[in-house]
């Protein structure tokens, strides 16, 4: 299995640990990722607020690069990138005028968009291409006793529910169970973490993060597992501020790929676990 890999800006910055865990885990499962050559920022949601056309072209350049690179599929681990690339494809399909314009613009640098390159999220690939069973078989150190609250965030299943249910996704739940973890069922799986507002409007952004952490803790979670660098950062970085405003709700937030790595027996530091502010503590392995 070979996929083009679009890391996006975050996985090179604040979300480094995501990449650091994703790559070895996928390699371990026989999935080959080839980084898209000279990719650019996906445009993210911020760009759309200023110029939808340019946002579209920006994302489309990446799709065109994938096509040039001969990739049949493109993997985008960051929720925002995943959404924006998918959205661009929808938009180009729906609006022939936009497609003409974007194709024209790409044409000026001899890039073209002649086919659909499906954009896939790692969760999707792991669940549907690799399969839970294959993952279960690789588990050497089951996460028994670890209670994890799966947190999908808003943009992986919304608005394009391509691989999981919009209101109650379960793909990560299945995965975590395969790793031996105990899954905490909670109704906040897809609630917004406030990430895009913590920096700009902390009253609103931080409160959302606070409520999430508080509820996870209340339901007995030892950790929150996330699929998005923004969410991870947001739930991990502001514990002090949250404590100052409301109450301390310290709880580690890790990438699901980090948990996979641990369950596969990879050492924590090779998975970027040292980068989190709130360290993850694993329960002692049970005798069984």
């Amino acid at each position: 299995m070979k996929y083009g890999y679009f890391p996006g800006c975050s996985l090179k910055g604040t979300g480094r640990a995501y990449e650091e865990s994703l790559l070895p885990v996928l390699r371990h499962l026989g999935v080959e990722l080839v980084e898209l050559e000279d990719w650019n920022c996906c445009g993210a949601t911020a760009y759309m607020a200023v110029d939808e056309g340019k946002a579209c072209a920006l994302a489309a350049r990446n799709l065109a690069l994938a096509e040039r690179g001969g990739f049949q599929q493109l993997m985008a681990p960051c929720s925002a990138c995943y959404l924006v690339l998918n959205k661009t494809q929808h938009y180009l399909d729906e609006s022939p005028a936009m497609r003409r314009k974007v194709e024209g613009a790409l044409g000026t640098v001899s890039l073209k968009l002649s086919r659909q390159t499906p954009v896939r999220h790692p969760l999707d690939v792991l669940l549907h291409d690799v399969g839970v069973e294959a993952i279960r078989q690789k588990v050497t150190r089951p996460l028994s006793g670890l209670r994890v609250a799966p947190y999908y965030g808003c943009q992986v299943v919304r608005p394009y529910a391509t691989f999981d249910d919009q209101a109650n996704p379960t793909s990560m739940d299945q995965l975590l169970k395969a790793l031996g973890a105990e899954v905490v069922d909670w109704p906040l799986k897809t609630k917004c973490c406030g990430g895009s507002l913590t920096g700009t409007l902390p009253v609103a952004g931080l409160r959302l993060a606070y409520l999430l952490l508080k509820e996870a803790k209340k339901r007995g979670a030892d950790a929150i597992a996330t699929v998005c660098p923004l969410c991870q950062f947001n739930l991990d970085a502001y514990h002090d501020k949250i404590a100052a405003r409301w109450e301390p709700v310290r709880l580690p937030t890790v990438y699901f790929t980090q948990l996979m790595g641990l369950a596969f027996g990879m050492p924590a530091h090779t998975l970027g676990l040292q980068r989190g502010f709130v360290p993850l503590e694993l329960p002692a392995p049970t005798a069984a």
Partner: protein
Amino acid sequence: MANGNGNNRTSPERRPRIGFYVCHCGVNIAGTVDCAEVARYVGTLPGVVLSRDYKYMCSDPGQELIQKDIAEYKLERVVVASCSPLLHEHTFRTAVEKGGLNPFFFHMVNIREHNSWVHTDRAEATAKARDLARAAIERVARHKPLETKRVPIKPVTLIVGGGIAGIHAALTLANAGKQVILVEREPTIGGHMAKFDKTFPTLDCAACILTPKMSAVGAHPNIRLLTYSEVVKVDGFVGNYKVTIRRKPRYIDEEKCVGCQDCISACVFKQPKFTDEFNEGLGKRKPVYIPFPQATPQVVAIDSNVCLNFRNGPDGSRVVSDKCKKTCVEACGDRNAIDFTQKERFEEIEVGTIIVATGFQAFDAKRLPAYGYGRYPNVFTALEVERMVNASGPTGGHVVLRDGKTEPKTVGIIHCVGSRDKKTNRWCSRVCCMYSMKLAHLIKEHTHAEVYNFYIDIRTPGKGYEEFYNQLLDEGVHFVRGRVGEVTDWAITPEEEGKLVIRVEDTLAGVVRRIPVDMVVLATGLEPRSDAQEVRRLFNMSCGSEGFFLERHPKLAPVSTFNDGVYIAGACQGPKDIPDTVAQAGAAAAEALSLIDKGYVEQEPNTAFVLEDECSGCKSCIPLCPYSAIQFDDARGKAVINEALCKGCGTCVGSCPSGSIVQNLFDDEEIFSEIEGVLAYE
């Protein structure tokens, strides 16, 4: 010019005298089409001796005008350009006939539904009307005199579905002395209404008004009740349908069972333990059961899926295992009504008319995960609550939480669940506002709880309905205008702990609210039954885009279908409440009655016939007829069409390679002349 194939028959020897009328339909047509111009133009066409425009052709003076003109102008053919022939062809044929002409010396041009209503440009619409009229003039000149056939009607009516609609229609017909066969899929009739405790807006007890009707059906000498049965095949046509019915084995001889229920008490299962469908899964029943005390017929049924006396056969079906002690049989004793050897049976019946009253199904609340049905135990559907408030229901009339004992102190009723939502069903289900208020009232009465109703709009367009709404306001029920965003067990504030929280924008107050409640009731909407498409095919009906059966005309023929002799009534035609259902059922019965009393139906004489001398006997047409109307006459080596069987589809006509089949009203030359007519432009 001859066509080189020796065909000299393209044009009639002499043009008959044609009269043409173009209808204004008030402004419906005249608003878009220049009717005077159409009349003027058609007046110039060969053979047209009279051309008029008139305000309302279908009105009495309009029809009389035609009759008068036929006499005065010696008209031999008549063309009317007005609305769809499906609407008024019959009207005008009758007028032409009254005027002394053969009714088929008439043709109708649709310039309303196909023209004035769908186009805006006056010049274009007028040109189109001219083209269509010209084609009709060409065509009508070639019309031949025809006679309508009369087919006798079997005076028996099949009614499919024994909800309130089917029950009412059956009784209406039976009381008029007509034979009725009522087929119901479940072990008892009653439909949804049998599940309710009270009915809005008068809050009369459902059982009190329904039970007498059910027993009347069971006892009526003119009604044959076939429960636990389904229609599997329908052949024939209006007046003469042959229907095959599958009778599922209930393992009880209906003739012998007296409904004593001794078997139920004696069953080896001491406690009821299997899901009780009638109680929406809230209660339990035994393998031998009767759905509810007033079930009709008063006959038990054995559920072979759970009865110990059955096991899985090699093909997955259930076969008798004879493993159970059969205490039920013992209890039944001499009555000897239990019969484990019963097999599925097929029965063929002959009927003249059919009323389909298969009702609706409630929207599956699981399809909207945001409302948590199936996830949070204390989210209920309305039907569950209907059962709970029913004194003979699973909780004995107590409204309680899923734990079976706690009474709720606050209840939120969410309207429009699955309705008015493009992601699920886009229509308004019409009864949920009213039944939500009914439930609000009943819950309050039973528990004194605070009740919140969450609605998009309150729709109370019925007699006494708005008054009922007012009554509820007076009772202090909360009405929050806003479609609920979500139901969650996520508590943010202390008073939310342990409750279900409804998050909603109170659009009237202009604030987002979180309202903690003990119980949520989902007012699930009405939708077509999941097998509606199969039923539709069975009876050759159409479905609207939502999937409810399509009536012939929403205003003028609301219970007729496009298949003559097949009528629809009740919620299978669209969401409706009991008063409307009963009104429709009465209307459907009246339609069937009027056919039966007339004694015959007139059939369009659009049948096909083989030109005897010209058929080569190539047999190409024979397999094409869906009704096996074409037979091969071995002695003469020719094909012959049995006119009584031919329904006039014309498939054989279009396929006879030597052009030796003619279809009345749709003859080749008639259609060729129409083609030429619509295309011959200046």
